[in-house]
């Protein structure tokens, strides 16, 4: 059968292209062009060799054992040195290199300790406008062992959001100790001595049961026997905001 001329022509072009491709692939270009694997291995090595900026507590401790011991006793024990002092790997390798920062400005401590309602309950916070405005924190608090100069009297220091919520409610004028028995120890070492929480309806009943003579609770008096079924009061009434909303 006679092969049409077109097929011969196109076939030649195709053959040339295929030959070029094969030449490129198997002869001219190196094998490493055609596989991602060797490059991935090289990437892993390259990534591993990237410079280190933070030395890590263990490295700091090698020379600064005293500061480490001081910090270990206090409430900043879990904070890495470089959280405050910045990346210090250069200093750890060569102590004559640029020294790490020593943040003594008030704003620095406030980034963690200024009141923010979204911080977890129990985290110590201050209101910057009220707490020694203008003064640097380090004057009264040793950053490595930040025991407050005076034991806090207000619960709001660590329980700010609860305090502020309560301040909006009908329970605003009640002290926290009205319902929570707080041991002195809680103010010094919070997790070692937790305050009590009300555990019976009668606790709320002291003011809110029928027959109560408390003038402040006069609008919220109920018959304890029938009100609320089997549930305890705080399953429905959040004690820090009993009316639910403003």
């Amino acid at each position: 059968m006679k092969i049409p001329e077109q097929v011969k022509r196109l076939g030649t072009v195709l053959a040339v292209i295929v030959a070029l491709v094969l030449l490129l692939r198997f002869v001219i270009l190196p094998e490493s062009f055609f596989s991602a694997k060797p490059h991935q291995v090289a990437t892993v090595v390259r990534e591993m060799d990237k410079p280190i900026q933070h030395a890590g507590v263990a490295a700091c401790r090698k020379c600064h054992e005293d500061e480490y011991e001081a910090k270990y006793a206090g409430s900043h024990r879990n904070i890495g040195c470089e959280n405050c002092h910045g990346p210090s790997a250069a200093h750890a390798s060569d102590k004559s290199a640029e020294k790490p920062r020593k943040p003594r400005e008030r704003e620095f401590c406030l980034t963690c300790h200024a009141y923010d309602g979204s911080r977890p309950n129990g985290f110590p916070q201050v209101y910057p406008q009220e707490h020694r405005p203008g003064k640097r924190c380090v004057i009264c608090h040793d950053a490595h062992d930040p025991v407050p100069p005076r034991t806090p009297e207000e619960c709001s220091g660590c329980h700010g959001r609860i305090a502020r919520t309560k301040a909006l409610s009908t329970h605003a004028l009640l002290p926290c100790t009205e319902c929570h028995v707080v041991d002195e120890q809680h103010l010094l070492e919070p997790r070692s001595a937790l305050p009590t929480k009300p555990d019976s309806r009668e606790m709320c009943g002291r003011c809110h049961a029928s027959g109560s003579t408390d003038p402040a609770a006069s609008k919220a008096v109920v018959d304890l026997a029938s009100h609320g079924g089997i549930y305890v009061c705080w399953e429905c009434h959040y004690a820090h905001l009993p009316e639910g909303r403003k």
Partner: protein
Amino acid sequence: MSGAIPQGLYEQLSHQLSQVIGFIYPNEVETQWAILIVVYPYITGIVAGAFILASLVKVFNVVEVQPIYRLALLTALAFMLVAGMPLQLHLGHPERAYEIFFTPQTTSAMAMFGFVYLWYLMGILLIEIWFEYRQQLILMAREAKGLMKGVYSALSLFSKDLSPEALAFDKKASKVITIIGIPSAFLLHGYVGFIFGSVKANPWWGSVLMPIVFLMSAIVSGIAMVMFLYILLSMLRNEKLDMRCLDKIGLFLMVAIIVDFALESLDYIHRIYQSEESIGILTQLVSSKLFTSLVVVQVLFGMLLPLLVIALVRIFRLNEELRKLLYFTSSLLILLGIFAMRWNVVIGGQLYSKSLRGLMAYKMEITGIESLVMALALLALPFVFLTVLFWLLPPRWMKTNAPGTA
């Protein structure tokens, strides 16, 4: 850390950050795929659509459309030559683009691009055009002098056979290539739809219908482009065009719009009915950020109005001049509408946060690489190429120089 970012980028991102409504993941402030990635599927869509129109002649024997056969092929080629450019310009490292050929990762739809593009350009379009023009190239080579003689001879691959058997073979080969070309065209544009449709992270994109919708709108845009060019060329040459052909193109365009609109409507109806978590933010997206480009430009002016006009043209037997004007306007509106569709998919998918809690903005730069000026240049370039192709491979040369042979 290592120096400031370019000023233009800083200004664009600062502006976009200030325009955020609600919450976005912080890295989402930058629009990753911008105007160039809107231009790319638009161009490949026209390639696929123009080719499908041409295939109607060869495979489905719609003889009325024969007059625009070569125009459609050359349009497909002109746009195909530009298709790779927006991608190349968009890459962070265009000099590494060859890696797509050398180490394609087979799990990535995008890795298919180089091969599908090359196959379609070399294996389908160029061969199709070669078979279609071979006879003419040989005749033009005979008549030409000097450099052009060499050019035409080379283009004909130094072919000389003009026997009836050879010409018959040309026709048969053309048909076979077109048959292979139709699924190839589907693949060329369908894989772009799959690139978006397979992204599970983005509910605006990640949909089974995406490749189908992309393809159908591509066909609409391709047919509209050929219609537009046909009318434009007849106006420029001050010639009569074949109204039977134009009406037939109008019919196919109308059918294509109806199917496309049905599919897109299905997508929206399905989303609203299913009411998945993303429906809230997507409804906000459509009613605020995309209202003009989607409801007004894409749907109303880009699909429904032209559909109505073409339908009316078919129902009422209007005179030729009016029909031409209405077809011209409709095709122009459709071309704008399909561009808006690409914008709404690509940019729209990046105007809301994957957290489903916020909306962002895209401030297109006027000049630069990823810019309005570049997009317009890339959209104008196929017409430049088409002009060159018309000069090199005049579609109607056979009629005037070798009547009775084609």
